[in-house]
């Protein structure tokens, strides 16, 4: 049976590029595209999907905010993260949701194609090569919740706005913020922003 694939990415060019690889190189034709987290949830509800290619950052939030729900509602759905963000930072967070495929957008075409093939053939995920960089990246230590908060923090949201967006109390957000500063060993917003840009954390 042909897998039913959903590509969730906020850049239409990226979606089309992946769609073309899937369709012309690998021969998959049941492909739908979504632009935002909201659309993704609607699409999953509407259609019986088997595989999801998921970017991390969307215009209406991050994948971390919806992945818990997706896991609960569609336990059968196979998920692969496909992002510019670093696996050493986000990999652990998604592993906590039992997601073991993490494909970087920076990889070349051949590697991308063979990785996609493995994922869609339901092969075991390639074992993670221990990355020497992961220990030195100050953002690797962040928990999923902290990664959710840091996204909005870097985007200039105030504690009040973050608490409303993520539906968490102000004090929770404050604690998470404090822990982010502790773990990254930064003292203020400016330092955090500089560090994020140094370590290629996009927001």
């Amino acid at each position, binding site marked *: 049976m042909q897998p039913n694939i959903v590509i969730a990415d906020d850049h*239409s*060019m*990226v979606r089309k*590029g992946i769609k073309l690889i899937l369709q012309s190189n690998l021969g998959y034709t049941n492909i739908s595209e979504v*632009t935002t987290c909201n659309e993704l949830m609607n699409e999953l509800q509407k259609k019986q999907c088997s595989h999801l290619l998921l970017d991390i950052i969307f215009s209406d939030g991050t994948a971390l905010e919806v992945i818990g729900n997706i896991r609960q509602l569609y336990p059968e759905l196979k998920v692969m993260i496909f992002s*510019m963000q670093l696996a050493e930072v986000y990999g652990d967070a998604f592993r906590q949701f039992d997601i073991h495929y993490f494909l970087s957008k920076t990889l070349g075409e051949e590697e991308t194609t063979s990785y996609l093939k493995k994922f869609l053939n339901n092969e075991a995920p390639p074992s993670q090569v221990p990355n020497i960089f992961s220990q030195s990246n100050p953002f690797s230590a962040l928990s999923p919740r902290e990664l959710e908060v840091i996204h909005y923090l870097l985007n200039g949201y105030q504690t009040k706005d973050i608490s409303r967006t993520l539906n968490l109390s102000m004090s929770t957000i404050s604690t998470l913020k404090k822990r982010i500063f502790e773990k990254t060993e930064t003292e203020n917003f400016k330092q955090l922003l500089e560090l994020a*840009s140094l370590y290629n954390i996009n927001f």
Partner: protein
Amino acid sequence: MQFIKEGYFQQNWPVIVCLIAFCCVLCYITVRITLHRAITRQKIFKTLLERKTREIKQKNEELEKNDLIKTRLISIISHDLVSPLKFIHLTSKNLLENKYEMSAPLQDEMLFEISNSSKELELLSTNILNWIKYQNDNRRMKKEEFDLYEMVNQIFSIFQGLARQKRIEFVNSVNSGLIVYQYMEPVRIVLYNLILNALNFTEKGHITISGGKTEKGILIKVRDEGIGMTPEQINNIMSEHFIVSSATVDNRKGNGLGYLIIKDLLKLVDAKFVIKSQKNKGTMVSIFLPL
């Protein structure tokens, strides 16, 4: 001798006392004047120092803000420029290699996307350049005469393709041949960004630009029939702390760069702007450029 001496003193003592008193008064006055001068100088130094400190503080804040914008730009470049470019390359390469096995609709879909994306990337790159260009404080700006009607037409032509796709019609309501004396480049960049914003947040309808001279300056209005903004979003844009991404409204794309540039440039030329909006009815941005 002694008598004479004594006599001299006795004879002249009032003069000597006067002399001493005079000396004392002179000394006192000199000291007072010096002291007074020292105090005034100190006061001047103090005010000067205060002014300098204020200037440095202000510069610092500006630099800090620029730093924020710079990091924001780095993020925009890596997220919104690099990955689409990479996929334009990948997709066009695929099209070339597999064109005989590909259905015509699929080819069309891909070509359409490549054409759109590359246009978007061009617009975004232009805007990033726009911002960088005006970050140099020493850059001298001069007012010059130009035809506002022609300028609006010229900017419209850049976006014509995008507008046609969305069934949006551009309307230039500026009096034809209206010559204004203003900072031309900043006005052009501001209008460019306002039109780009209007385009991004409008699905169909009209985007109208009107403008004219008033007693004290020039008033330009950009009106769209798009999804509009909430009072909260407008406040956010107008706030001093506005840095980023608040333009991401209702799932539509936007990286907040536009209003950042608009605000920066309008401040540079002492202009004011007002946003009026009604949800789902449209937005009108008025800019006032003083003479």
